[in-house]
């Protein structure tokens, strides 16, 4: 293994994105090796079709390649930046192609609906504040925020899903965000 390969093998996500910004193809490949399962999972959860999720991931990696220059390590470890790209691509795909009716497949299931969603947040340090603050929201606010972020649901889809009026859902989302921000900043 060459020194370059060794260095790439040890690199963090942030370092890899910066190397991609300088035009390193091996760094992009390594980023794919490290992050593709996580990112594909995020896309699949939103679009719920494997072929569409694969297209989303492909588009996302092309954009990562083209736009890595815009990432700055001041913004964090890089994972959130990658997630943002994949989520917006997945949301675009859903708006374009529509979404499969929610299946009973536990692999694609309605996990965000479950009341223990907060408990299932990984016990990572980075999730600590979010976990605490989500726990402080009303149940309905929390459901709305997680259905939107994790499942990529629109206001209308959330309203249908939880059988609540659209205006009420919009208000829950908004109030949930305001409460979250206030808690996260405290």
């Amino acid at each position, binding site marked *: 293994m060459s020194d370059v390969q060794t260095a790439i093998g040890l690199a963090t996500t942030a370092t890899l994105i910066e190397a991609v910004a300088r035009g390193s193809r091996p760094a992009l490949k390594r980023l794919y090796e490290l992050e593709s399962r996580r990112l594909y999972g995020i896309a699949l959860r939103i679009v719920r079709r494997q072929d569409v999720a694969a297209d989303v991931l492909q588009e996302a990696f092309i954009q990562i390649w083209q736009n890595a220059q815009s990432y700055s390590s001041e913004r964090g470890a890089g994972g959130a930046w990658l997630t943002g790209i994949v989520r917006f691509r997945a949301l675009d795909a859903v708006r374009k192609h529509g979404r499969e009716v929610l299946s009973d497949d536990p692999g694609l299931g309605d996990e965000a609906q479950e009341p223990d969603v907060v408990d299932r947040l990984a016990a990572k340090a980075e999730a600590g504040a*979010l976990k605490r603050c989500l726990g402080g929201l009303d149940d309905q606010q929390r459901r709305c925020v997680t259905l939107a972020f994790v499942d990529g649901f629109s206001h209308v889809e959330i309203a249908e899903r939880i059988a609540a009026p659209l205006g009420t859902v919009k208000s829950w989302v908004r109030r949930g965000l305001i409460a979250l921000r206030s808690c996260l900043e405290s």
Partner: protein
Amino acid sequence: MIPQDRDELNALAGEYVLGVLEPAERRELEAALATNASLRSAVAFWEEQLHPLSSLAAPAEPPIGLWEKIATQLEAMPQAGVTRWWNRPAPWRWATGGFAAAAAALLLYIALGGSPATPNYVAMLHSPQQQDQTSLIATIGRDGLTVRMIASAAPPPAGRSYELWAIAPGATTPQAIGIMPESGVLRIAALPPDVRLGATLAISVEPPGGSPDQHKPSGPVVFVGAVESL
């Protein structure tokens, strides 16, 4: 309308990151990112803070051969990543293409440091030996000159500073422009006359106060780049 009120702004940014805005609202917000620093920082806040929630989506194995498809598509692209975005007529317009996260990051990159929101000219400075590795980016516009070291660029040796020079088109003598601060961002509101289209910008390694001669670097020139139209 993008609200002025801080709570309203933060809630709107949160709705944007959640992905619940209507397409028209989303386009309006993405367009506003170019000029609204509070909005950019609110969006960055939510992206980072909500990110752990994405771990609720179980990782899954992408289809076999997907990387090869990506690699093939990359091969067919006209240019590699590094200089590509400068070639676009207005990079911040990505925001309206539904590529909000990266657009926001790009805008943070060129605009948060106070560089002109609409640069007219840019210069990408690189080591003469490694022309594919940009180390500093200069943006030039109505608001003056902003030079920013990119995060991965090599810092000056201990006890030394980087000094910025400009050589006007056709000139043979460089003009000292300023010392790069430790923050890595140099801003000069009143555009020095030598910094214009066709000029060369250069960085030399100097003692902390800069070269004693305002028209001649005392140390080696380590990065150079030409001022070009965006």
